[in-house]
């Protein structure tokens, strides 16, 4: 009798453990997908005219103490004693959700809408501004890079694009956004905190041209959504 009870108990244990076996199987994980690609893009657009996400203005050598922060256009020009530079800055903290400091910036593109092109192909250089400035206060004389032309040197530019009507020029069409305004390295530095975001300055690669060479962009103050300056940042938040 006792032996039968022991055997029955042993069988019961076996059944219970068998049930555990089934439970264990149910808890097993099978993951086979490995092609999920999480990308996130923050698009900052300077619209409407009262937008605070971006500031822009033009510094004019020919009116060296005048501020042009309320104009509806931005200008880059190479001309004898009449050079013009564009300054603009985007507030990256407006991205929602915020871009983590650890994010890997895959691509950052500065997009400006060209409304008028020079008749020759000109190179526009982008320089990371090294000091703060304001939309309502910047002039040629007080700009962060100083009043000397062709300063800073081309070698320190962080981006560049060509613009002009001749065949072969990178941006040949008016009334379109320029291509080539890549500022990935700068934005990565801003996000990581290794560089302060004072925005950018755009100037002609060779200021002081005997013949004026001017490129005109739409400014935030134009208030047209389809032409507003943009900064497009694509990143991976969890690499």
């Amino acid at each position, binding site marked *: 009798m006792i032996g*039968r009870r022991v055997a029955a108990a042993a069988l019961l244990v*076996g059944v219970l453990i068998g049930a555990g076996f089934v439970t264990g199987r149910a808890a097993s994980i099978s*993951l*086979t*997908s490995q092609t999920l*690609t999480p990308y996130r893009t923050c698009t900052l657009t300077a619209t409407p005219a009262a937008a605070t996400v971006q500031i822009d203005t033009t510094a004019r050598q020919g009116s060296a103490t005048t501020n042009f922060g309320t104009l509806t256009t931005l200008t880059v020009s190479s001309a004898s004693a009449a050079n013009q530079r564009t300054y603009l800055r985007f507030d990256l903290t407006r991205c*929602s959700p915020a871009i983590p400091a650890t994010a890997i910036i895959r691509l950052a*593109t500065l997009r400006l809408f060209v409304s008028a092109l020079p008749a020759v192909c000109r190179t526009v250089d982008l320089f990371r501004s090294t000091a703060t400035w304001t939309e309502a206060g910047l002039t040629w004389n007080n700009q962060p890079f100083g009043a000397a032309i062709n300063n800073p040197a081309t070698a320190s530019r962080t981006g560049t694009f060509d613009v002009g009507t001749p065949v072969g020029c990178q941006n040949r069409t008016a009334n379109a956004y320029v291509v080539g305004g890549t500022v990935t390295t700068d934005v990565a530095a801003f996000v990581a905190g290794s560089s302060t975001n004072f925005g950018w300055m755009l100037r002609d690669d060779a200021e002081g041209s005997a013949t004026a060479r001017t490129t005109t962009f739409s400014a935030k103050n134009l208030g047209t*959504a389809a032409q507003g300056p943009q900064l497009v940042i694509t990143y991976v938040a969890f690499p």
Partner: protein
Amino acid sequence: MPSWRRLGLVLAIVLSGTVIGAAASLNLTSSTLGANRLATPRCTAANLSVLQNLSGSNVASVTVSGLPAACGGGTLQAAVNNGTANSTGSAAVPAGGGSVIVTLAATVPVSEAAETDIVVVGP
């Protein structure tokens, strides 16, 4: 020991061993899952360009370019969120990669800051 008693003990021991083996097994075939991390698959190395296409003052579609061939055959899903409105869409990635235009189910008004999430599922 009677045979039926031995049989019960053997049965219990055998089942116990089976249980231990099964409970410890995990069938993980993905090499891309890490603790508190999202998958980091082949597409993430690409410098994708994600641009909004407007219809008036609204985002109607999104152009994603720079897709590597490795993503070809997958489905690209996009979601645009401007903080007050959002919309989604999806499109197939060409076999060789390249560019994809994702039309949103509904337009989203242009705003100062908008987020676009891009996910490639498959192939």
